[in-house]
């Protein structure tokens, strides 16, 4: 086996890795993307059971926008010529809270429509909620400005144009909502998307929540017609068309380091691939513990961070239509409470009644399953050691017990019946996510974006965090925090920064 040589090796063909490889290949760097699985995409994939093709992970993607009014991710996709057929989602979400504080609201996309609807549900909320969105716009613009300045923003510009962005960057969502004097009821409705981040509102950083919220509500959300696998395949084609190489079923064993800088990688098959730059889609926890000599700086950085939620998704192929069942919306949040701390704490155990983020794919993509059928997926989150007592022998029971609870709860809250219509059933547990993507301990939510470890401090410390010269990170565990759009964008940024690194090395 002869040694290979590339400008950049990208480890992992998840969303971040695909975006990074497409970016560096387009820039003309000789790029190799290495993926342990035999498919691209990581979580962005699809799988078939019986006559159903399921979406494994994507609920809705923000930041894509529409032709003529693209979001950040949309602009990036266009810049690399990515061909995906997008379907727009009508309403933002329906939120149903059962328990001591009952709530049933349906919130639209579009900032003005959202504010109007909120005023209907919570009279007197208009001004403060409007301020929330205005502030969120400044946050997004501020992040955009820092991005464009390539990490060297003009302090005067920042202070004058983005003062509120700077002011709020170190606070939690609760703190800012309180400062804006948003009524409690409106906060509860506004905070519905908290489960997409998975860190309770008393701890989650305002910046990251505000950016996500604005991108969803102002820009709307989309899904690809042929599951997220379609996006992954589109990236794969573009990478190859840009001259990049992809190795599937190949695992990187070690990142080779010479004089404190990246020198290449070694695959499990024993092949040495020379490269001065590595972009890892694999989390720092994986890279530092398996692929490099773990230094105390690396251990300390990892130990200072909290690994976010582990995924649990129950997939149902139903032999009835959504109409027959009586579900008209696409996205439902079924919460046992409006207290996000309480819900967050419940993630640490499999005992309680978990919150549910429910997606009815057919309500946006009617042709996604055969006539007379539909698909429904219910997602929840676990943390810490909630699954650690699960062994091979009680695994099926553990995953099915949760699914049974979810079905019963969903049926009772929504007043519908789905149990008798289940033709196909599958579960992706934290073990499943770990199995297919290598996700560290089944984590799908990266590192928790608390105020001190959110997008801004991570961005400002990119250089401090680079423990090996030439090694950058992308994906859900990287500096943009997790989520589909963020992962693609982090890959794009990591690719551009690597391109810059490479020109510096040459000159």
């Amino acid at each position, binding site marked *: 086996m002869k040694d*290979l040589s590339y400008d950049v090796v990208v480890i992992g063909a998840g969303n971040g890795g695909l975006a990074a490889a497409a970016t560096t290949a387009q820039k003309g760097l000789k790029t190799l993307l290495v993926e342990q699985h035999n498919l691209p995409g990581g979580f962005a994939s699809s799988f078939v*059971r*019986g006559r159903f093709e399921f979406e494994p992970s994507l609920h809705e993607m923000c930041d894509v926008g*529409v032709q003529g009014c693209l*979001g950040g991710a949309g602009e990036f996709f266009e810049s690399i010529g990515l061909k995906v057929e997008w379907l727009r989602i009508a309403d933002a979400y329906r939120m149903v809270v059962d328990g001591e504080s009952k709530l049933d609201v349906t919130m639209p996309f*579009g*900032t*003005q429509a959202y504010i109007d609807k909120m005023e209907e549900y919570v009279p007197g909320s208009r001004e403060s909620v*409007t*301020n929330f969105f*205005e*502030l969120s*716009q*400044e946050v997004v613009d501020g992040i955009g400005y820092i991005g464009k300045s390539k990490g060297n923003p003009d302090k005067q510009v920042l202070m004058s144009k983005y*003062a*509120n962005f*700077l*002011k709020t960057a*170190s*606070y939690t969502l609760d703190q*800012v909502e309180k*400062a804006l004097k948003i009524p409690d009821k409106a906060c509860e409705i506004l905070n519905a998307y908290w489960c997409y981040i998975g860190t309770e509102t008393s701890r989650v950083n305002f910046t990251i929540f505000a950016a996500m919220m604005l991108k969803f509500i*102002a*820009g709307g959300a989309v899904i690809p017609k042929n599951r997220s696998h379609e996006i992954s395949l589109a990236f794969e084609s573009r990478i190859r068309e840009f001259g990049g190489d992809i190795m599937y079923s*190949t695992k990187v064993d070690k990142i080779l380091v010479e004089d404190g800088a990246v020198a290449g990688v070694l695959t499990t098959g024993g*092949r040495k691939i020379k490269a001065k730059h590595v972009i890892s889609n694999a989390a720092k926890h994986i890279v*530092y513990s398996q692929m490099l000599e*773990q230094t105390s700086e690396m*251990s*300390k*950085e990892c130990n*200072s961070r909290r690994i976010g939620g582990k995924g649990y998704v129950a997939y149902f192929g139903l*032999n009835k239509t959504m109409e027959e069942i009586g579900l008209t919306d696409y996205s439902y949040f079924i919460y046992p409470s409006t207290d996000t701390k309480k819900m967050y704490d419940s993630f640490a155990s499999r005992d309680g009644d978990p919150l549910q983020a429910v997606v009815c794919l057919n309500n946006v993509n009617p042709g996604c399953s055969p006539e007379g059928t539909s698909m429904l997926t219910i997602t929840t989150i676990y943390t810490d050691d909630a*699954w650690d007592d699960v062994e*091979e022998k009680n695994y*099926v029971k553990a995953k*099915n017990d949760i*699914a*049974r609870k979810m079905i019963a709860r969903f049926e009772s809250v929504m007043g519908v019946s789905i149990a008798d*219509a*289940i*033709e*196909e*059933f*599958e579960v992706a547990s*934290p*073990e*499943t996510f*770990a*199995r297919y993507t*290598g996700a*560290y*301990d089944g984590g799908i939510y990266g590192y928790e974006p608390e*105020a*001190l*470890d959110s997008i*801004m*401090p991570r961005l400002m*410390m990119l250089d*401090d965090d680079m423990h090996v010269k030439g090694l950058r990170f992308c994906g859900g565990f990287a500096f943009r925090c997790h989520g589909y759009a963020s992962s693609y964008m982090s890959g794009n940024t990591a690719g551009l920064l690597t391109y810059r690194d490479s020109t510096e090395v040459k000159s």
Partner: protein
Amino acid sequence: MSDQLKVNVKPIGLLNLLAFKKLVPGRKKRIGKASDEKIVGTPPMNALAQSMHPDVQTFRITGISKCPNDVTIYELKSKHVAYFRAGQYLSVKLDIGGYKVTRPYSILSSPKDASKGKCALGIKADGFVSEHIAKTWKVNDIITTSGPEGTFYYDDIRDAGTVVGIAGGCGIMPFYSMAQAIMQITEKFKLVLLYGSRSAEDIVLRDELDDMAERSCGAIKVVHVLSEQESEGCETGFVTKELISKHAGDEPYSIFMCGPQEMYDFANKEIAGLGLAKKFVRAELYGQINNIETYDKFPSAEEGRKYKMTILASVQEL
């Protein structure tokens, strides 16, 4: 963004601009205070994934027993056998004269056996790989397989409380695993097995199956269906809808099928007359379909046409 708001938020007096400047020192301090204990490479969920779904399992053959009809049962042992769901299969990995091949064979042993490091496969010698196996595998040989695969198993979230199993020939293997799991109470459902063979002499694992049925307190019922022979205590002919209705019992049931394509073709026509919802009928993929060109939807223009396939060499082969 589609609709930008024109409202200007007044500076939020309560929050301190200086706090922004504290973000980096704050994060640095937090990292500085963190433990320098090494992070583990394989945390619990990844460890569970590795033990449940190993890329490769290595077994020693500990026993070989010949059964009727060119079926051979291979008993296997390994230090760790991945736990599985009764009805799943292993893909055997072989190198035959330089050709790397894999073939799926249903596991006939029980999940409980797996936790004791034991496993068994029943293989009918009727193809390139299975005949090679029959000729070459000896006791004490080391073989490699995949982890457990497949979705041909019972799940009470989707299936009825009774499973009518229709098995043909070597298709008995997954049901044999399920029957043992029911006896060992690792599975809880009622199994009515309609097991088709040509003659009484052709029945694989007959004594073992009949014995389990007898000891199962009604949880397992085995009906032998002989196509070319009349024999006492056995049904004669094929598995018809009348036969299914006669033995299925009064409770709702799911039909699980495992056997050759000809059996599916016949059974599907019969099942169509039972008025069951599609969710109550499942079939395992079973080997290749012979005479594919005789099937309805086969595009006749393609018959006999040869294709040239170009394999784009991956960089792995450079």
